């Protein structure tokens, strides 16, 4: 082991000019890819925001269904961007990262609105304590007093559109009357409108932070020493693979069989969420999305060890494929009494194991590049 490490250091020191050039290209292409990914996400989120406005202007079953449809579409575009977390970039910077405002989960529904057995719960039903629902209030309430006290972001919008999922075989079924005749309907509408607007603001910040030719995070990022930038890129891939996706989002739900522990528990969109996350890792590895198609981490690894590069590509591809095979809704596989031999649970478990396996290979690839990864 020690001998191998020494050899690698020597190899790294002997980088040719061509190899350094490739590293620079990979880092620059990554920055393009992150920018493009957030731009795509902002575009579909803006469409969702329009559909929410349409729904709130004329709340009917049809406009509500259209708003939900738009949320699902927008969610698909956000999922892959989670591969850009876990290294203190714009999304989760210690000082002003917006991850907690955009995507914090799980949330305590009763912090926002009524739940079964607590008809007066939540900020929406507390007009005396919170007379005005605006952006400032919601941001100030987010994660106040506890990590589960979530007031903004994707899952807050999801809860306000779908409501609690109280059935084992379908999504939440919030009545449209919650936005017409029910108590505090106007406050609920205001809450939904404000938190949807906020989502656009926070996503917009990500687009700006990664825009080319500006004095922003991207400019600093591409100026980093290559091994530092590559360390960040691969930390994002590895942390999302194992700790976040295989661990927190899948294992906990799989083992506890608690519906509250599936990721998008109100809309039953969990399978798509998982596929979105897994494909984000693939996106980074291959360096391709939308109009962006340049060298990725794959190309760097291949320059050192082509077989390793191919193996990781195949493993990441296999994780996406096995995640896609989890039959929705995800929560049907969490019910008591469903055997671990049932196809759905087998697919979930196989996805977990596949993600863990690819994480080991990501670490191996990092070693091949002379990058020290510290995955949790």
């Amino acid at each position, binding site marked *: *082991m*020690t*001998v191998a490490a020494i050899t690698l250091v020597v190899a790294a020191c002997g980088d040719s000019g061509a190899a350094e050039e490739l590293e620079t290209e990979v880092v620059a292409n990554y920055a393009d890819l992150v920018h493009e990914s957030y731009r795509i996400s902002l575009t579909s989120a803006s469409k969702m925001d329009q559909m929410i406005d349409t729904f709130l202007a004329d709340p009917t079953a049809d406009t509500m269904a259209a708003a939900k449809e738009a949320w699902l579409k927008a969610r698909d575009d956000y999922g892959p961007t989670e591969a850009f977390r876990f290294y*203190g970039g714009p999304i989760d910077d*210690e000082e002003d990262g917006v991850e907690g405002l955009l995507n914090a989960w*799980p949330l*305590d529904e*009763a912090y926002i609105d009524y*739940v*079964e*057995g607590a008809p007066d719960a939540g900020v929406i039903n507390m007009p005396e304590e919170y007379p005005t629902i605006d952006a400032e209030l919601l941001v100030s309430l987010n994660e106040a*007093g*506890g*990590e*589960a*006290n979530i007031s903004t972001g994707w899952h807050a919008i999801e809860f306000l559109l779908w409501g*609690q999922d*109280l059935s084992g075989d379908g999504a939440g079924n919030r009545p449209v009357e919650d936005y017409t005749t029910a108590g505090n309907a106007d406050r609920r509408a205001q809450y939904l409108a404000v938190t949807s607007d906020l989502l656009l603001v926070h996503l917009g910040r990500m687009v700006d932070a990664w825009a080319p030719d500006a004095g922003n995070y991207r400019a600093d990022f591409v100026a980093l020493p290559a091994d530092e930038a590559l360390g960040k890129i691969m930390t994002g891939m590895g942390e999302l693979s*194992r*700790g976040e996706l*295989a*661990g*927190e989002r899948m*294992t*906990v739900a799989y*083992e*506890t069989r*608690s*519906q*509250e*522990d599936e990721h998008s528990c109100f809309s039953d969109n969990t399978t798509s969420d998982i596929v979105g996350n897994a494909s984000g890792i693939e996106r980074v590895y291959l360096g391709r999305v939308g109009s962006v198609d340049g060298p990725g981490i794959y190309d760097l690894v291949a320059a050192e060890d082509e077989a390793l590069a191919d193996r990781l590509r195949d493993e990441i591809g296999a994780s996406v494929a096995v995640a896609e095979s989890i039959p929705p809704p995800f929560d049907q596989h969490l019910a008591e009494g469903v055997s671990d031999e049932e196809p759905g649970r087998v697919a979930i478990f196989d996805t*977990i*194991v596949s993600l*863990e396996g690819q994480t080991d290979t990501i670490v191996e690839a990092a070693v091949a590049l002379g990058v*020290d990864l*510290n995955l*949790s």
Partner: protein
Amino acid sequence: MRARLLAGLVLVLAACSSPTADLLVVDSGGEGTTNASDRNAFGNSARNLTNDERRRFEIGDSFFTQNWVTAPSSTDARDGLGPLHNAQSCSSCHLLDGRGSPDSGEPGLLFRLGVLSGDEQAPDPSYGDQLQDRSILGIEPEGSIRVIYVDEEGSYPDGSVYSLRRPVYQLEDLAYGEISVDVVVSPRLAPAVFGAGLLEAIPEASITSLADPDDEDGDGISGRPNHVAELATGGSALGRFGWKANVPGVAQQVASAFNGDIGITSPLLPDENCTPTQTECAAAIDGGSPEITRDRFEDVVFYNKTLAVPARRGLDDPDVIAGASLFAATGCTSCHVARHETGASEIEALSNQVIYPFTDLLLHDMGPGLADGRPDGLATASEWRTPPLWGIGLTETVNGHLNFLHDGRARSLEEAILWHGGEAAAARDTFAALDSAQRAQLLAFLESL
């Protein structure tokens, strides 16, 4: 393999060559040490876990971090909060697996109660052994505590001055009748959690071999093991955890905190923390018997045991190296024993590890300034367990504060040192007699931990 053996040999030789070698080792927590030094530096799993173990860790993490809710709830795996409690989750007090603060406005400092009779103490008949200042809807919280700080000025021999603050506690809003007139209120700050499994795996004989209860070696330092009730066996065992070494193992620590702090019953403590006079508390709907199932409880215990110890930073800094020598020379290492070896553990990753927690896990008389007046097991009113120092240099990064000691009265590592009294008075005086540059070096050393 051969190369690794040789490397090991070189390290051993190096370790023998300098008295401070043990004070300057990067991997404080053995092979599981994490190199993270960011806000999540206390929240990582030991690096040497298997994938199966990591899954258990993640489940434990989930039940450590997320809020418990009032029963009954559709969130049935996580209901049963209270009725009386101090916090909604483990992470309410151990935010990011770290240390609480008395100044944050969040939970993190709680209060034990005891009614003295001679050298023993018993729970208050109406309020029990801990004041729960929160409750579910429909149940009154037991009361609250007002903290008042009294400033105490002091000065170093070189003339520079400092200010310490001494806390005074007042019980308020007591909702369950009179409390015993001679009740003793003892504060307890939530400590950082990581490394607990490694401390548990230190062989008992290693700890007791450090004891010197009658100070036979005449160095002014005694060191006494606590022996306390062990729930799992019904017997007594060496105390290792808690500010007075009043808890023998991680499982009992977790069960006690679930029960006393969150109101969650567990296989080890199946009864709610209601006293006989708190009838509404006893009658409230529970979240199952027990409220946390055996599997989930064991996952949380596993999580507590396998949180990684963070690695040291800046060990090539000349000030840190000089500070290490001063740390030894002032006598800090008499109690803050740097190096230990773990024995066999049922968790392979914790077995046979060389670790650097900087504690002897023994009780020491810390003088009247820190005494809480409340004996606990064999611990007297003025004895405290030497707390581990690993990771303290990251407290501000993770938790955004520098509150140390059992009640968080210290607002910096320097203040924490200055509060040392009793057996540690000589070491404190030696520290105080250093010149200001040397004091800064010793503090730089502590910040590298």
